[in-house]
Structures are given as C-alpha cells and as structure tokens.
C-alpha cells in the first residue's frame, strides 16, 4: 500500500506538470485564415458587427474575445493574439513588459455620462467639473447645495442627500472617468488619481453598468456614471457637463465625435477627457486596437500581417458606418488621419506593410 501511494503520487505530479507545459498557445500554429483578438468589453458589440461584415466581404475570420482591456494587453504581451483592444493606452509597466513598440490605433470613441435620480424628475440638469469632483470627493453632500442650485435656475433641486455610486470592478469606464476628474480637480489628482480601479473616498460600488444603473434608478438622490451607450439604450437621465470652453454639453454621439476633433499626438495615445473642442463633451475617450509595430515575430507570415493591417484599415474607413447605429461615436476627421498614419507605420521585417 505504501509503495502504491508513492508511485501514484509521483505519476499525478508528473501529469500535472506536463499539462502545464503544453498549455502554451502558439500563434504560428494557428490557421492563417483566422485572426485572433482580445480585450475591451466596451468595443465588443461594435467589433462583432464589424468582423461579421468583414467576413462576408473578404472571407477572413476574426475571433475576438471580450475579456477586458487588461486581459487583452496581457494576451498581446504573451503573443497569443494578433491584436489587443483597450479603452486606455498602455501604462509604463505594460509597455516595458512588451519590450517592443506597440501601435495604438483608435477604432471608435465612447463617453461616460453622469446619471442621477432626483425626486421630482428633472431631466438634463447642468453640472460643472468642480461639482462632479466634489460630489465624488464627498464634499458636496446635498442636492440643494448652493453651487448646484446656482447653475440650475428654474429646476426643482430638492433638499436630498446625494448617494454616490461608482463601478465596483476595475473598468475602462472608471479609467476615463477618474482621468477626467484628475484633469479638472487637483485635489482628486493628489488624493485619488487615475486608474481602472481606485480607492473611492465615498459611495457604493455596483458591478457593471447594469448594477450602477440599477442602484441609481432605485435610490432617490443617487448619482452614478455609466457608458453613454448604456444610458442611451436604457433611456436614463443624464446631466449636461460644462466643458473647457465653458459650454454645457449634452452627451451625444455628435458631441463625443466632436471631442476627438482636436490636434492629436502622432501616436494617438491621449485621453480625450476635458477636450479643447468647443462642442465636445468632456468625459470621453478612444478605444484602441493594439498591435506590434514590427509584425514579423513568433513565426508570423507576411500574409497574416497584411490581413491584420487590412482589417484594421477597413475598420477605420468603411467600418465606421456601423458605429452610429450601434451607438458608438465615429472617429473624427483628425482622429482618422492620425490612425491612417499610425497604420502605415507598421512594418514586416522593417518594410512598411500598407502602401
């Protein structure tokens, strides 16, 4: 019996170790007709529409897993996918881990809206950046705060405590929102900062857009933030927000596209929040596709690299017609130009792939 046990134990350990070695997935072994992508859940509905249209047109299949931006970046780093998709640019550590330059190609933009539940049902109230920051810092605790009443003349703002709701899980939405707050409030920047999950000074966390929306709808006096798409589809109340140029802007696909119509850096790695554009809604951001600049790695063929580049090129041109029906904001003219230039900088063995 003793002997049996030993033998079997060793065998079991060997099997488990063995299976660990074989779990590595190699891109080179993949079928060249199927491109692999992973990342942002926000862009998933748009991507699945785009990829199915592209498949009808060209026969190229794309397998996209919506596992979250962080996961997409990790998979690209491990070279198990052809492209990642992320709602935020690579941070320093992620870029270091990748080792080689990665390109950020904007695909579409999205926005974060401030939704609320005011007893009395006032729609599209006005909010300023400092009010939003102070609500989320826990400094404004009542709806009838003089600062809120002051910019909402003629609106019935009741004396009601504010219940702050935020996302519980790490998300690109939170990343854009906290990035905005950090830009408009030095206090937020020093106390909390920007990340996909932060140490919230006040409030409740809801898991996912649906949970935040549910809590806000249920609780009188609640305020929360959700993706524009989600608010549009669910007909929720959301606020106009004062932008940098001093205009109160209602979030809409047009005002989100407008936010991206500014001079962008050559690598497009910028948060669109607090935009300079006069008609732009201030809390929005790009979703990027991420690829390696040098496409000849891990035994990938030129054919595969060309297919990938053609797909992304199609996404930012013909593909843009599918954005608005799905409530995504199409790329602005400026963004499109930058994206084209970035795609053209991709190489295979040092030679440009797109001409």
């Amino acid at each position, binding site marked *: 019996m003793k002997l049996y046990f030993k033998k079997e134990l060793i065998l079991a350990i060997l099997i*488990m170790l063995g299976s660990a070695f074989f779990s590595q997935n190699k891109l080179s072994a993949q079928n060249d007709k199927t491109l692999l992508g992973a990342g942002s859940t926000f862009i998933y509905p748009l991507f699945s529409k785009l990829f199915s249209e592209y498949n009808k047109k060209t026969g190229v299949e794309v397998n996209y897993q919506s596992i979250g931006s962080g996961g997409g970046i990790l998979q690209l780093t491990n070279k198990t996918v052809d492209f990642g998709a992320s709602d935020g640019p690579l941070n320093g550590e992620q870029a270091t881990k990748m080792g080689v330059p990665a390109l950020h190609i904007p695909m579409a933009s999205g926005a974060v809206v401030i939704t609320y539940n005011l007893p009395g049902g006032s729609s599209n109230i006005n909010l300023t950046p400092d009010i939003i920051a102070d609500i989320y810092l826990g400094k404004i605790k009542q709806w009838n705060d003089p600062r809120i009443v002051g910019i909402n003349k003629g609106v019935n703002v009741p004396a009601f405590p504010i219940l702050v709701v935020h996302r519980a899980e790490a998300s690109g939405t939170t990343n854009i929102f906290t990035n905005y707050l950090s830009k408009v409030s030095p206090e937020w920047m020093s106390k909390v900062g920007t990340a996909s999950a932060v140490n919230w000074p006040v409030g409740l966390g809801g898991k996912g857009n649906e*949970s935040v929306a549910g809590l806000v709808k249920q609780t009188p006096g609640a305020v929360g933030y959700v993706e524009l798409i989600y608010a549009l589809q669910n007909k929720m109340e959301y606020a106009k927000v004062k932008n940098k140029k001093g205009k109160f802007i209602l979030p809409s696909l047009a005002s989100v596209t407008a936010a991206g119509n500014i001079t962008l850096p050559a690598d497009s790695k910028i948060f669109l929040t607090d935009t300079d554009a006069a008609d732009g809604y201030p809390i929005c951001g790009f979703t990027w596709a991420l690829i390696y600049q040098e496409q000849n790695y891990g035994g990938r063929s030129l054919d595969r690299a060309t297919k990938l580049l053609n797909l992304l090129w199609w996404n930012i041109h013909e593909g843009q017609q599918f954005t608005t029906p799905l409530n995504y904001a199409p790329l602005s003219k400026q963004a499109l130009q930058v994206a084209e230039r970035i795609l053209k900088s991709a190489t295979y063995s040092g030679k440009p792939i797109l001409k």
Partner: protein
Amino acid sequence: MTSIAGTKREKNSSGQIRAEALFKRTLVLIGCAMVVLVLGILLTLVIESIPSLKSLGLKYLWGKTWDPVNNVYGAFPFLLGTLLTSFLALIISIPFSFAIAIYLGEYQPKGWLSNFLKNTVELIAAVPSVIYGFWGLIVLVPMVRTLEIKLGVLPYGIGIFTSALILTIMIIPYSASLGREMIRLVPSQLKEAAYSLGATRYEVIRSVVLPFTKSGLFAGILLSLGRALGETMAVTMVIGNTSLIPTSIFAPGNTMASVIANEFTEADHTVYLSALIELGLVLFLVTVVINMVGKRIIKRFTNE
C-alpha cells in the same frame, strides 16, 4: 481475504486479478490527484503572492487602505467584511436550518409534505448564485432600505446586512439537509426508551435527539460556513463594494472573494495582481483555519 478470494480467482483467470489491482490503483491515483491539486493551488497562491509579500510585508493583513493607484494594499476591510457577512449569515440561518432539520427528521419524516419541503430546500442550493444576486438587488434591497429608513440609519439598501440575508438563504439547505440526515440516524431504541419514561416529544428532542446529533449538526453549520466564506457573485451584487471599513452592519463593505472577482481582470501592474492573489491566499488560509477549529470543536463534543 486473500486465501479464499484468491484461490477462486486463480481458477478463473489471472486477468481478473490484474483488473482488480488496476481498479485499486486508479482509485488511489485519483485520490492522490486531489491532494496534489490542493497543494498545487496553495503553492501557486504562495508563489504568485511573493511580489506583494515583498513590497507590503505583513502590513498587508491589517492595512486599511486599498489603493491601486499608489500601490498600497491592505486586506483588513475585506477580511472583516468576509467574516462579518459569513458569521452574521450563520447566526441568522441556525434557527431556520435547525427548525427544518428537526421538523423533517423527527416530526414529518415521510409523506408528500415532507418530500415537497425537502425538495424545495434542496432546490434552494441548486439555484445559481447570480440569480440570488439579482433577486437581492431587485427585491431584497428595497425592503432593507425601507427597514433602514424606519430604523433611522442611512438608507443605502445594500450593505453587510443585505449580503448576510442573501447568504443566509443560500446556506440554509446545507445545514438543514445534513441535520435532517443526522436526526433520522438517532437509534429508535433511545427515543422509545425516553418515551416509555414519560417524556414528551419536545423533551425527547431536547434531551435525546439534539445531544446525540450535536456533532453532525455542527458539521452542517461548518459546511455552510465554508459556502458563505467563498460566495462571490451574489454578495458582490448587494454588498456595496467599498473598501471603507464598515461602521455598522447596515454599512456597505466588501469581501475578499468579491474584490478578487471584481478587480482581477483589469489588474494592470505586478504588485496589484499579486496583492489580489495574496487575498486569495488569505481566504484559503481563513477557510483552512476555520475548518480546523471546527473539527476540533466537533471532536470535543463527541468525546464528552
């Protein structure tokens, strides 16, 4: 055993003996695989926690801030949240599960009513936890909010108390089913002897059935506690997910399991990811410690 069975088999075929041995070895192999699996999980958790252990040390356990931006991680609020929700749920569940166990085990062991009740209780255990989460969010939260308004506390609706209520419902079947089985195992001679001495039904339960089954009842409670400690989805949806330390049982909080589930996918730097895995390690150890303490208590009870 070998002499009688052995000679018989030798007559049949030696293949049968080999099959017999193979069967036994398969059983041992599968058993061993479980041991390796648990040790492997523990090992993975420890190895992956090293970056966080290095940068935060033991402060991690009682640190009160969880700040992914500045890479400061303290597990205390979540440890507290996990223990608070689980034990609160346990306390609320005991009267219910004992009542069901005693009724089904002693008063109504047979018949359609008993079957119906038993199946319903078992069904509670089979419902996926996300459904409890949704139900909690839509039905229970407004009810708790009404209660909170009456009590004069901040009407969040979600929080430690709501989570404990959801957990209570989810864990009742475990202790109730085990308790029922235990009560039915009480030898009828013991009960009949008590009846013949003139004891009433209540007295029989109090002084014969319960003392005889206490270790089994306790094991059921322990089993349900394990379930409560690890429950993720339903709790996440109604606990409020804040890393502030809960000030009362009506305040929002967070548990270790739900923090891991919420933040794991997007943990974008090494220490952050490692801190989440260390949270898993703490949860693992808490479960082990509670199980060991529980076993000790069971042993004490039975040795008396």
